């Protein structure tokens, strides 16, 4: 009898370990969780991360900033306005429906209806179905960024999202506030299905058995995402083994994580530029290019990266990060206090002046500390800055109202292209066209406007890059804004997670391809 028990127990034990070996569970702790399961309800980093886990785009960015075929296997330009996409065959949605050209058309049309995405998809004319697995995507005028935008097309299951839900609301309705079908239901083609979701508490993803990408090395069978808002708690959860992966890692804890034997720290250069704009409408001093240059020369942004950011950012002299078409190597970061003082003297402002500044205190990494550093750095050229910082909930209204002479803003290009920075941050503010929407410096240079617009429809990429580089040079010489740095993304993970291949400059960790050893 006793022997029988022992045999039985060992069989049970082996069975238990066997199932453990096959199942790889990944526990992820992020600072926030996705606000919805509807990828079109909000354009934000968190929602795009979710899209990559649950849905799958036509094409996606690689680490080298090239395009990787996903649901589109190849593409070719037919004319100036049209790009033909050949769709992957044999792909199934989570609902079991097959993926066809109809779903691409449905998705692009839905994007054009979304409040958040319609701006980005404005240049698009529509989708023409050639056959079940071929579509032509057309634009209204020649558009250089068509492929960049295809990274935003995460085909949704048109059959699954049509009809009406139990409230009588169409299933494809995009509802910002209030219940909707797509808020709680999903059917994408991505590596993970959402099996449980309690907003703000926990989301459980399980690997989709019918996932098309059999070549993906990813072996995560279950992923549990928990938002952990408090920085210290998130780090503690990783160190104590309660979660396997966290992001972001606060700079002050970098050393802790590096020292720990069980976890690794990963950083990846990001594309978000942090700047401060100098309002030329409010202050006549800022209209003088010498004063603006003096300010840029007085800011030791390399020092800020070293001491405040603990080296987790790349010092910037322009908007476009390295790797972008418009990145101009000639626009180097400049810090020269002597030169700054000389420029102030030349402008007749040796004695300086007093101005105001606002900055958020919970929007960007160490935003408040950066703003405080600006105050002390500008004091050296006799500019007295009265700084006010506030939470982001209040900040953007104040920013729009341009309540201060200097205002901080960070920007990440939605298109992963240089033009986007100029369109929002430095083009002449124009209510009608919407350009310069976040240009609170009121810097206005017709040549920059002309070049930015021309670059939009220039499909010769070499010519286009030259134009974008020229823009950066003009902005550099004009000292149109104070550049600080491009923020790095940061991740902490247990040693057995092969994180390196799945991270990228967009901060979309591709968990579908994650290998757990």
């Amino acid at each position: 009898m006793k022997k029988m028990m022992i045999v039985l127990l060992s069989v049970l034990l082996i069975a238990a370990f066997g199932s453990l070996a096959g199942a790889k569970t990944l526990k992820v702790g992020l600072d926030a969780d996705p606000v919805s399961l509807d990828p079109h309800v909000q354009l934000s980093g968190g929602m795009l991360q979710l899209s990559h886990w649950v849905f799958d785009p036509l094409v996606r960015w690689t680490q080298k900033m090239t395009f990787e075929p996903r649901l589109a296997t190849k593409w070719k330009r037919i004319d100036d306005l049209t790009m033909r996409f050949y769709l992957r065959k044999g792909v199934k949605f989570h609902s079991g429906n097959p993926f066809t050209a109809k779903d691409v058309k449905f998705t692009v049309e839905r994007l054009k209806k979304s409040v958040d995405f319609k701006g980005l998809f404005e240049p698009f004319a529509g989708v023409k179905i050639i056959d079940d697995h071929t579509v032509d995507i057309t634009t209204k005028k020649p558009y250089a960024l068509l492929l960049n935008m295809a990274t935003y097309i995460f085909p949704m299951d048109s059959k699954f999202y049509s009809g009406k839900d139990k409230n009588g609301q169409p299933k494809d309705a995009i509802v910002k506030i209030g219940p909707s079908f797509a808020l709680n239901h999903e059917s994408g083609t991505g590596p993970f299905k959402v099996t449980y979701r309690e907003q703000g508490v926990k989301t459980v993803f399980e690997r989709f058995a019918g996932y098309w990408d059999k070549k993906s090395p990813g072996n995560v069978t279950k992923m549990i995402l928990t938002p952990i808002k408090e920085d210290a708690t998130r780090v503690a959860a990783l160190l104590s083994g309660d979660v396997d992966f966290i992001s972001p890692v606060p700079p002050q804890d970098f050393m802790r994580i590096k020292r720990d034997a069980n976890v690794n720290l990963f950083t990846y250069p990001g594309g978000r530029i942090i700047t401060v704009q100098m309002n030329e409408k409010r202050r006549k001093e800022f209209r003088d290019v010498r004063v603006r240059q003096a300010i840029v020369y007085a800011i030791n942004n390399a020092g800020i990266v070293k001491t405040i950011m603990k080296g987790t950012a790349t010092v910037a002299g322009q908007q476009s990060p390295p790797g972008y078409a418009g990145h101009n190597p000639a626009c180097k970061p400049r810090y020269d206090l002597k030169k700054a003082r000389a420029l102030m003297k030349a402008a007749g402002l040796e004695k300086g002046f007093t101005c105001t500044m606002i900055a958020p205190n919970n929007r960007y990494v160490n935003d408040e500390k950066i703003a405080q550093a600006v105050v002390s750095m500008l004091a050296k050229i006799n500019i007295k800055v009265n700084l006010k910082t506030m939470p982001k909930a209040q900040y953007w209204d104040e920013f729009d109202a341009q309540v201060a002479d200097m205002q901080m803003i960070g920007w990440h290009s939605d298109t992963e292209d240089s033009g986007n920075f100029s369109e929002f941050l430095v083009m002449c503010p124009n209510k009608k066209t919407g350009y310069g929407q976040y240009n609170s410096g009121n810097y206005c240079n017709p040549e920059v406007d002309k070049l930015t617009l021309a670059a939009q429809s220039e499909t010769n990429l070499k010519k286009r890059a030259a134009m974008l580089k020229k823009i950066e040079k003009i902005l550099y010489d004009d000292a149109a804004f104070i550049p600080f740095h491009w923020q790095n993304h940061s991740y902490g993970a247990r040693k057995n997670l092969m994180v390196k291949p799945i991270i990228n400059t967009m901060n979309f960790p591709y968990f579908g391809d994650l290998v757990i050893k």
Partner: protein
Amino acid sequence: MFAFIVRRIGQAVLVMLVISLVGFSIKNRIGDPVRDVVGERVTPAERAALRQKLGLNDPFLVQYVRFVENALKGDLGLSFFYKKPALKVIISKAPATLELVFVTALILIVVSLPIGVFTAIRPRNWFSRFTMAFSTLGVSIPVFLTAILLIYVFAVTLNWLPSYGRGLTVDIGGWQSGLLTLDGLKHLILPSISLASIMLPLFIRLIRAEMMEILETEYIKFAWAKGLRRSRIWFLHAFKNTLLPVITVFGVQIGIMFAFTILTETVFQWQGMGFMFLEAVERSDTSLLVAYLVVVGVIFVVVNTLVDIIYGLVNPTVRVAGRK
């Protein structure tokens, strides 16, 4: 008596109106909820359209009257972030907070009573001196520091206890309980200890002071003279009378404890009402904010009104005093 009750209820309604009005008027100062719902690239025109649709552009009074009308029907509005009725969100978060407060109260009772009594009857013992010195320190350490210290010692370094969240919960008729699973109980230990740490020194000192005072009274001296057993004097005659003022203070402090849950819950990512409230402030989820204030207001007003009415029934002088 009837008049007294009617008057008391009338007052309660008035208080509720004032609370809702205050909550409603601060909501415009918190920030723009539309900003948090849309991405940064959305045009001002689209945002304005959304504001219009949500009725945020209506005059203050129109919005307030609409809110009160709906509130009377039991509808406190839709949370902007959760996209669900605010009342539902609050109710779903209540068990977490209630369980945390319950366990904390339990710890308070179990720990502070014996220590308080011991330090009173043996004031010169080394343990008493140590406790007194230590409790001064305890009062002066802020709760979030205690919480982070506990996490680093017990979760990160020793790896005995989990660092965040509620763990495994069991659903009992919609009440998500963490009290019934081992995992849930483990998750409760650190948050409840840090929450208890603020009140514990206070209670130990209170019990000690009350007990010492009573030990000096005539009837205790008389009991000694009568030659009663020590344990009978301490635990029956003295202890019972010590408890009366302690219970009164305990009742008041439980209310204050709810306020402290905001900090504790944030540090431990504890999905309760306090955490929800702080997040609502950060996200300018104003409708949830107002709903929370109203719900908490209702709880306090109802409890106080009931207490007053019962008090009036028990003690007629209160009724008489209220009549003039």
